[in-house]
């Protein structure tokens, strides 16, 4: 992405993973999994409407000077292992923090042959910096590849037990 106009206010990502819905639910909501793909930090989910969500930075990010809390938000809707709706705000960057909360929806649907379809809808509203980050537009600056990188990492981890990009979250 080179221009801000290339980024819509809603982003939709879909990936097919050969794993049961419960495994995907756990991989999204439990630290033992979230530390192994994507940005690689622990998470705290209070899985009830109104519950708090905290996404922590990884050890590597803190070693580079990041604060303890990377993202925060509130759980809005919980239907395990099928649907999770929450708010989401980048808390570690003042500019993105000031742009406020966005809305994330995970839809986890069982398909044939042990395949599960994961659809992530990120309603970004007026948060151009976060939209750029989550679309992968800051990957070359070392800010990770956004949702497609996170979800590809989730797929690789659940299908192979390996991390897609071990260097990405040390």
């Amino acid at each position: 992405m080179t221009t801000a106009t290339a980024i819509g206010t809603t982003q939709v990502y879909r990936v097919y993973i050969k794993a049961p819905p419960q495994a995907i639910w756990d991989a999204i909501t439990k630290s033992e999994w979230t530390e192994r793909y994507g940005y690689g930090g622990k998470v705290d989910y209070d899985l009830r409407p109104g519950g708090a969500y905290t996404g922590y930075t990884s050890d590597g990010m803190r070693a580079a000077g990041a604060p303890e809390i990377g993202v925060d938000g509130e759980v809005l809707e919980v239907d395990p292992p099928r649907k999770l709706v929450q708010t989401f705000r980048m808390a570690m960057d003042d500019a993105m923090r000031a742009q406020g909360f966005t809305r994330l929806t995970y839809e986890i649907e069982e398909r044939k042959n042990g395949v599960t379809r994961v659809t992530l809808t990120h309603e970004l509203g007026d948060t151009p910096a976060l939209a750029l980050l989550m679309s992968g537009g800051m990957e070359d600056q070392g800010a990770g590849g956004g949702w497609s990188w996170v979800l590809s990492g989730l797929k690789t981890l659940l299908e192979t037990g390996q991390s897609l990009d071990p260097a990405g979250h040390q």
Partner: protein
Amino acid sequence: MTDDDLVFKALADPTRRFLLDLLFQRDGRTLTELESELDMTRFGVMKHLRVLEDAGLVVARRSGREKLHFLNPIPIQLIHHRWIDKYRERHASALLDLKTQLEDMA
């Protein structure tokens, strides 16, 4: 067909690549908006969108009465990992070997 086959087949057509470019420029468009950019019948555009959806490159979401089309970059990312990173790594390591050999000779 495998997932990769569906993606390569979808990408093999210039109209479908053009539709992806349109969504890259601005995501979440209706069929009517996409159709206005193409010299093609509505039915023709629908057929192309269907191929893109089957390959996972486009995800359609309902928003009120409208059906919006979103570009999903993940299948292209997976192809990239599978077909491009792999060969680029080999290519890069061959160059590094060459560099080491040349430096050893010097």
